[in-house]
C-alpha cells in the first residue's frame, strides 16, 4: 500500500479533534443541579485489548432453544473471531424481556434507526468526543489524506448467518451507489472537490477508499450520521440508498444485473410494485422488510407500517459483554403506535414504556416529575449541544411567489424577523427556563463556535430596530390592522410557516412567535402539518419558513442539513442543495455571494486537517449568523430527545447520555447493554 502509513489500526483510534470540548458544555448543567436531573455523561466501556476478551460465550435462552432444535448454529460459531466487547456500565445484565417504546407512525423510522445504530462503520464514545470502533474494528488515514482504509472484524456475519465481508462494501459501491436508477444523485461525501472517489477491496476484511485530492474530513464522516457513515438502518430506509455497505447476497436477486430487466420487473409487478427500483427500495429497508439481513442488535419481525413495530434480537449480533454473553440482553423491542404526542406522554407517565426519550415533551416536565413514583420511572435531562432547538429555516431557493422570494432572500428582512423574536419569553414558556437563548451557532464551549458574540448577533429582542429595518427596505406601508403590505399588489404580506409537532410543540411555539411578529407588522400563518407531508413539502422546495431544530450542526461537517444547503432536501434551499451536491448538474446556482462563499469554505474544509476544518466552520457560522438564513431562538436544552424516562426496573442506565445527532441518541449509550433487573 503506497503512501499509507498504517498507524496501527486497532491501537490508534484517535480522539476526533472536532468533538474534544463537548464535555465542558456540562458547565451550564450546574445551574440545573438543584433539580437533580442532569447527571454526568457516561456509558458502557469498550474493551479493545484482545487479551481481556472472554474466551467462551453464552446466549439468550430463546436462542439456546433454537440451537437445540437445530435451527441455529452454536453461539461460538455465530460470534465473530474479533467481536465487539462491552463492559456494561454497572454490571453484567440478565437476558430477557421486551423493551416497550412508543412511535408515531411510518414516518418515525428514526426512532428505531437510532437504537440500531451499532450497524454504523464507526461510532462515538459515550461522551461523544472520540471516534470508536463499531462494525469496523479500526481505520487508518494516509498522510496525504487521499487514502482511507477500514478494517472489518474477522468472521462477522449478517443476521441470516451469511458472512459479512469487504464484498458487501464493494457490492454497495458498484451495484447500488453506482446505479443511477437507484441513486440518481451521488453523495458529495464521495466526491471531494467534485472528483468521485473509489472503493477497492484489499482483502476479505479490508476496504480502501481512494480519492484524487486530500480528504482528511473523511475520518469524521465515516463515524458521523452521514450518507457514508450512517449505517444500513438509517441510510437504506425510505428511498435513501447510502450507508457504504449492503447485503449483496440477498439484494442481488432484485437487481437486473444479476438476472434480467424483464425478470426483476416481472417480479416487481407480481409483488405489487411499479418497477424493480421501487421493489429494491422496499427490499433493502429494514423498517419495512422483515427479510433483509442486518448487522445491528435487532431485526424487524413486524414492519413499521403496522400498529406495533416489533424487533427481535439478531442471533448473529457481533457484540458480547465481558462475561461472554452475546448481546443484546433484551429479547425484543416493541414500538406501539401513538398518533399524538399527548398519548405518548400520557402512556409514558403511566409507566407503559420502559425507556423513552423520543417524543417526550419538555413542557410536561412538572407533570412527568409528579408521576415518577406512580409510573415507577426516573426522569433524566440530557442537555443538547446545538444552537437552536426551535428555529426558522428560511428557504433561499423559494420560487413559488416572486414577492415572497424577494423578502426571504433579503438579509435585512431576515434580521428584522430575528430581532422581532422575544427569546426569553419562549425559553420561560416552553423550555421552563432550561434553554439558552441565541442564534443558531453552537454553544461557546464547542470547538466550532465562532465566539460568544455570535450567539447574540441579530439574535436579541429589539422590535424598534426591527421595525426601522423593515421600514428601510421598502415595507413601510401597512394595512388597516397594522400589517405590512406587499409591494406588488398592496395586499397584506403573509409568510407561511410550516410547523410539525415534534420535539417541542412547534406549532404552538410558532404561534407565539407569530404573535411577536405582529408587533413588527409581519403576518405569519402557521400551518401545522403531519411529519411526512411537511418534509415532502420541504424537499419539494414548497416551503417559505420551515420550523425545526438544528440538532447535529454543532459538528457542522457531519450533519450539515440544518445549517448549510449541501445535502439534497436542506430546508435552507433545496434547489441550491441540489445544485451543490450534483456539482452544478441539477438545481439552481445561488445568486447570493454569501451562499457561494459558504459553499467554498465547506468544500475546502474537506481537504484540510482538523485545525483548518474548525477554522472554516467558524467562518461559515459567522456568515450564517450574520445573514440569518436560519433564525435561531433557544437551544442547548433537553428539548429534543433530552427528556428521558427510564423505568426503575432497568439496569446499566447512564445518568446522562450524549444528546447529539452524531451520538445517535440513545444509540451510543448502547441499549443492547441495558437489561431488566427484575
Amino acid at each position: 500500500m503506497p503512501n499509507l502509513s498504517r498507524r496501527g489500526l486497532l491501537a490508534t483510534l484517535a480522539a476526533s479533534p472536532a468533538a474534544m470540548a463537548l464535555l465542558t458544555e456540562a458547565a451550564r448543567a450546574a445551574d440545573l443541579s438543584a433539580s437533580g436531573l442532569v447527571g454526568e455523561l457516561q456509558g458502557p466501556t469498550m474493551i479493545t485489548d484482545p487479551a481481556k476478551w472472554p474466551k467462551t460465550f453464552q446466549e439468550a435462552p430463546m436462542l439456546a432453544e433454537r440451537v437445540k432444535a437445530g435451527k441455529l448454529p452454536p453461539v461460538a460459531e455465530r460470534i465473530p473471531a474479533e467481536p465487539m466487547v462491552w463492559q456494561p456500565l454497572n454490571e453484567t445484565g440478565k437476558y430477557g424481556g421486551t423493551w416497550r417504546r412508543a412511535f408515531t407512525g411510518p414516518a418515525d423510522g428514526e426512532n428505531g434507526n437510532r437504537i440500531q445504530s451499532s450497524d454504523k462503520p464507526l461510532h462515538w464514545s459515550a461522551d461523544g468526543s472520540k471516534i470508536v470502533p463499531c462494525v469496523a474494528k479500526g481505520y487508518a488515514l494516509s498522510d496525504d489524506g487521499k487514502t482511507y482504509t477500514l478494517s472489518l472484524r474477522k468472521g462477522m456475519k449478517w443476521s441470516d448467518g451469511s458472512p459479512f465481508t469487504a464484498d458487501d462494501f464493494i457490492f454497495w459501491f458498484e451495484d447500488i451507489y453506482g446505479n443511477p436508477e437507484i441513486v440518481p444523485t451521488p453523495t458529495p461525501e464521495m466526491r471531494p472537490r467534485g472528483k468521485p472517489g473509489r472503493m477497492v477491496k484489499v482483502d476479505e476484511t479490508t476496504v480502501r477508499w481512494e480519492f484524487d485530492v486530500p480528504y482528511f474530513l473523511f475520518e469524521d464522516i465515516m463515524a458521523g450520521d452521514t450518507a457514508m457513515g450512517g449505517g444500513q438502518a438509517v441510510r437504506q430506509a425510505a428511498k435513501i440508498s447510502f450507508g457504504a455497505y449492503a447485503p449483496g447476497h440477498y439484494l442481488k436477486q432484485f437487481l437486473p444485473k444479476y438476472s434480467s430487466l424483464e425478470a426483476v420487473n416481472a417480479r416487481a409487478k407480481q409483488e405489487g410494485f411499479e418497477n424493480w427500483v421501487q421493489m429494491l427500495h422496499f427490499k433493502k429497508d429494514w423498517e419495512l422488510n422483515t427479510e433483509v439481513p442486518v448487522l445491528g442488535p435487532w431485526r424487524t419481525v413486524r414492519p413499521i407500517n403496522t400498529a406495533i413495530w416489533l424487533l427481535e434480537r439478531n442471533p448473529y449480533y457481533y457484540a458480547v459483554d465481558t462475561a461472554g454473553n452475546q448481546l443484546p440482553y433484551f429479547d425484543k423491542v416493541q414500538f406501539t403506535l401513538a398518533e399524538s404526542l399527548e398519548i405518548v406522554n400520557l402512556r409514558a407517565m403511566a409507566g407503559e414504556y420502559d425507556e423513552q426519550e423520543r417524543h417526550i415533551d419538555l413542557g410536561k416536565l412538572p407533570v412527568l416529575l409528579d408521576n415518577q413514583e406512580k409510573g415507577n420511572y426516573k426522569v433524566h435531562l440530557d442537555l443538547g449541544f446545538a444552537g437552536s432547538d426551535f428555529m426558522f429555516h428560511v428557504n433561499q431557493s423559494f420560487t413559488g411567489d416572486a414577492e415572497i422570494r424577494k423578502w426571504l432572500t433579503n438579509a435585512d428582512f431576515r434580521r428584522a424577523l430575528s430581532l422581532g423574536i422575544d427569546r426569553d419569553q419562549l425559553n420561560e414558556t416552553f423550555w421552563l427556563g432550561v434553554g439558552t437563548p441565541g442564534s443558531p451557532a453552537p454553544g461557546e464551549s464547542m470547538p466550532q463556535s465562532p465566539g460568544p458574540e455570535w450567539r447574540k448577533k441579530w439574535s436579541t429582542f429589539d422590535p424598534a430596530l426591527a421595525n426601522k429595518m423593515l421600514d428601510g427596505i421598502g415595507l413601510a406601508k401597512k394595512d388597516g390592522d397594522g400589517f405590512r403590505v406587499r409591494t406588488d399588489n398592496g395586499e397584506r404580506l403573509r409568510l407561511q410557516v410550516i410547523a410539525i409537532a415534534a420535539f417541542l410543540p412547534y406549532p404552538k411555539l410558532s404561534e407565539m412567535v407569530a404573535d411577536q411578529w405582529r408587533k413588527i407588522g409581519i403576518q405569519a400563518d402557521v400551518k401545522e402539518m403531519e411529519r411526512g407531508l411537511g418534509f415532502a413539502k420541504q424537499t419539494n422546495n414548497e416551503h417559505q419558513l420551515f420550523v425545526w431544530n438544528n440538532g447535529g450542526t454543532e459538528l457542522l461537517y457531519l450533519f450539515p442539513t440544518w445549517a448549510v444547503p449541501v445535502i439534497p432536501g436542506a430546508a435552507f434551499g433545496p434547489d441550491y442543495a441540489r445544485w451543490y451536491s450534483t456539482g452544478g448538474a441539477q438545481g439552481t446556482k445561488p445568486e447570493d455571494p454569501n451562499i457561494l462563499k459558504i459553499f467554498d469554505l465547506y468544500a475546502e474544509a474537506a481537504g484540510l486537517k482538523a485545525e483548518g476544518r474548525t477554522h472554516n466552520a467558524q467562518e461559515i457560522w459567522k456568515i450564517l449568523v450574520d445573514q440569518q438564513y436560519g433564525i435561531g431562538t433557544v437551544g442547548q436544552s433537553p428539548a429534543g430527545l433530552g427528556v428521558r424516562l427510564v423505568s426503575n426496573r432497568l439496569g446499566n442506565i447512564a445518568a446522562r447520555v450524549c444528546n447529539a445527532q452524531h451520538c445517535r441518541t440513545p444509540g451510543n449509550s448502547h441499549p443492547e447493554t441495558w437489561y431488566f433487573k427484575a
Partner: protein
Amino acid sequence: MSATTAESRVAVATQRQLIWWRFRKHKLALVSAFVVLAFYVVAVFADTIAYTEPFDTQASRSYIPPQPIHWFDAAGHFHPTVNALKGTRDPRTFKLAYVPDASEPRDLVLFGHGYEYRLFGIIPTDIHLLGVVNSRPQDALFLLGTDQLGRDVFSRLILASRTSLSIGLIGVVISLVLGVLLGGISGLYGGWIDVVIQRVIEILRSIPTIPLWMGLASAVPNSWTPQQVYFAITLIISLIGWTELARVVRGRFLALREEDFITAAELAGASQMRIIFKHMVPSFLSHIIAAVSLALPAMIISETTLSFLGLGLRPPAISWGVLLQDAQNLQTLALAPWLLVVALPVIVVILAFNFLGDGLRDAADPYG
C-alpha cells in the same frame, strides 16, 4: 279576577298576547330567555367586559390560577382589591408557583382604563367594565387565571363568546333564508322542483356531518384571514342547518296551501308574493321562531366541535372551540384545570337555548 273576565280577556286577546301568556307560564323558558339575553349582551359588549388584550402573551404570567377578590379591607369597609402576584419557578419540580403579596393590594374599580378598542366597531375608547387603579390590568387582574402563554382566560373567554354566539346567529340567519326560500319553493310549486329539492335535502342529511365538515373545512385555503375562515365556517355549518328548516317550511306551505283563507285571497286576486308574505308567512312565523331557537344551539355546538377538532377556526381567532382545543393536553389537566372553564358557558348557553326553544314551541300554538 273572576273566571268570566279571564275568559273574556282570552277571547279578545291578540295572538301576540296569547303567545306571551302561554310563554310566561313556562318558567324555565322565561329564565332561559334572560340567560340567552345576558349572553348576547356580553357578546355585544365583549371588549368592554374583557379587561386584558386577549393576545397579550407574557411568560412570567404563565399558568396563574384563578385569583380571589378581597371585597373588604382590614377596617371592614367595602373596598375590593386583588393582591399582586410574585411567580417563581421551583428548581426541583419546575412548576411556577405564584405567591400573593398582600402588602401591595391593587384596587379594583368599575369602568377603569385598559387596552384601546372600538365600541360597536366605531367608538374608540379604552374604558373597560373592570379596571385596576395602580397597575396595568394585564399585570394584576386574573379572575379566571391565565393559560400557558400568560394570556388572561377571562378576557379570552368573553371575546370567544362573541365569536361563537355570532357564528350561531349568522349561521341560523343564513340557514333561515335558505330554508324558507327553498322550503317555500318546494312546498308552493311541488312537482319536479319539490322532488329535486327534497332529494338534495335527503342526500345532505344522509352524509355524516363530521366527515362532511372535515372535507369542507379542509378545503378552506390556508392563506385566508381568520375573518374569512370565520365566514367560511359559518357557511359550512349553515349548509347543513338549512335542510331541517326547509322541511318545516315546506310542510307548513303544503298544509296552508289548501286552507280556505288562502283560496279566498287567491279568488280576491292577490298576487303570489302577497299571498306568501301577507297571509302564509305570518301564520307560521311563530313556528319558525321556535325552530330557529332550537337550531341555534346546534350551530354553536357545530362551531365548537369543528374548532376543537382543529378543523374550524384557528388561532389567532378565539372561540369556545379554539379555547377548548388549547386545553386539550396533559399539562392543562394536571397543572391548569381552570382552562377547562370554557366548557361551562357552552353547557349553559346550549341548555338555555333548548329550554327557550321548548317554551317558544309551546307558546307558538297557544290554543294547543
